């Protein structure tokens, strides 16, 4: 089967680095987004897209990989990183009104942004964002775009017009098939993401990032953000940090001490 060039959109999210303490603040219990990075799980989506593009001759072969983000001005960092890793171009929906958008509002904006790009063959996302961790945006986006949804793909192949993926559930490993265009989310089992190299970092400087506002996409400000979201956080509390308890070094009876501990905690 002929493998024609693909027009792929990869969703990339700018998220607080999980290596640091993450904080909620203010009346709306919003997440503090300083110290943010490209979500680690989106690197697998980008890799999946680049591998498909590479196999079809890359940019020279007519393939396009667009890194799309919705977020504050600083979120362009996630797009830039994606361009350094190898995406062809960037699209950044940036608007102050977006702050506080839930999955529903976010998927609405993503759908409009993807439609603004004209026909695409594949939308590829990570399995979850590392901040929201809900995994529901891909499903909502495919519903809004009317695209077949293949989520949690741990292996992925496109031949001709058909995409085939493996989805490993708890009870079954399934093979799922759809005809392009389709939306796919990939897990961290799907591939080994590449790192940006020096050449990629230089090349990225010449790549284009288009920044659009909600008005450009024909979305009114009250359809997004806190106003347009269909959920709200009404209370938030930081869990007390766990602290180290007893630490012993085995001197021959640690297994017995372990059992003593379990017995004291009434677990045996």
């Amino acid at each position, binding site marked *: 089967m002929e493998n024609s060039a693909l027009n792929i959109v990869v969703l990339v999210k700018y998220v607080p680095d999980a290596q640091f303490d993450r904080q909620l603040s203010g009346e709306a219990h919003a*997440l503090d987004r300083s110290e943010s990075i490209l979500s680690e799980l989106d690197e697998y989506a980008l890799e999946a897209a680049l591998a498909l593009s590479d196999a079809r001759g890359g940019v020279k072969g007519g393939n396009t990989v667009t890194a799309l983000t919705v977020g504050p001005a600083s979120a362009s960092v996630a797009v830039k990183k994606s361009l350094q890793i190898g995406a062809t171009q960037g699209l950044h929906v940036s608007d102050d009104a977006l702050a506080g958008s839930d999955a529903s509002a976010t998927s609405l904006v993503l759908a409009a942004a993807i439609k603004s790009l004209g026909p695409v063959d594949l939308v590829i996302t990570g399995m979850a964002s590392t901040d929201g961790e809900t995994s529901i945006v891909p499903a909502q986006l495919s519903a809004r775009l009317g695209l077949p949804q293949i*989520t949690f793909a741990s292996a992925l192949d496109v031949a001709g017009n058909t995409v085939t993926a493996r989805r490993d559930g708890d009870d079954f490993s399934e093979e799922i098939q759809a005809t392009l265009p389709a939306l796919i989310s990939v897990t961290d089992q799907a591939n080994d993401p590449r790192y940006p190299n020096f050449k990629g970092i230089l090349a990225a400087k010449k790549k284009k990032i288009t920044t659009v506002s909600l008005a450009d996409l024909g979305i009114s400000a009250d359809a997004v953000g806190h106003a347009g979201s269909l959920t709200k956080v009404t209370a938030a509390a930081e869990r007390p940090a766990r602290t180290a308890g007893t630490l012993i070094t*085995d001197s021959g009876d*640690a297994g017995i001490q372990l059992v003593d501990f379990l017995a004291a905690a009434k677990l045996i």
Partner: protein
Amino acid sequence: MSAIVVYIDQLDAPGKLSTTVSQLLTLARGAGEPVAVVAGPVSASVLAELGAQGVTRVLNSEQAELGEFLVATKADLLAQSAAAVSASAVLVENSAAGKEIAARAGVSLNAGVITDAVSVTTDGGTLVAHKSILAGSWTVEAQATSAVAVISVKAHSIEAAPAAEPTTPVVEAVEVAFSPASLGARVVSRTPRAASGRPELEDARIIVAGGRGVDGDFTPIEELADVLGAAVGASRAATDAGWISHASQVGQTGKKVSPQLYISVGISGAIQQKAGMQTSKLIVAVNKDAESPIFEIADFGIVGDLFKVLPQAVEEIKKRRA
């Protein structure tokens, strides 16, 4: 009283309700009038269980498309049924598929979707979902601001209990109008994954998890798990190495668990591992490196060789029980 829909999948394991579904029905009954929406057959025994839970209405479809396509057809059934009974809320199990069914039904119903609820309470008629976020470092309460709320709920949100007055539910067949795109992602084959015979990670009171330190040999982990009646978990290093099924992975990209006791063995405690287990009630760690970060969150830490410590603990437990 407004209808609260509980989504029930009877396609994969028909004939009985899962424990989580029974919990959701108990939740729904406490908050309104429980309505069951069933994908697949409603057997006599399932009907009896639904009656014991006080369910009066059951909507079901056995259309083949529900099993032939991924997630989307089930979401169509759920959304159309919830609209038909004017539900004020929809409750779904918090599995990977359950969350996606909730997500898509939310789009159709223009409803706010909240996932990963550990419990659900009511506040003046509004459902409030309680969840733990940011890898377990924060707990939040969330509500839908829409007319309908869709919430996916984790296991053990409530103790399942029968209704004071059992009912005789009426089953209404639903003819789902599938959206064309819902018929896009076809399940072309399914391979059952081998069952371990041990408790499921999400259900287990105790989990014994092994990491790279087991060096390919999960026997000590499994033996300790079996004397404790525990589930077996693993770090990604162990599942990536192929020593144990990926379904056993705990962490950011695996299962998020909060058992009474998590015994971490030969696992260093990387941030992605902690993301899946640091809400456990008690944490015990066995690691030969005293500097290992896992000890920072362990209630009881043992610096030692797992191949010595675990077999000794197993022997000791057997001895005390004899």
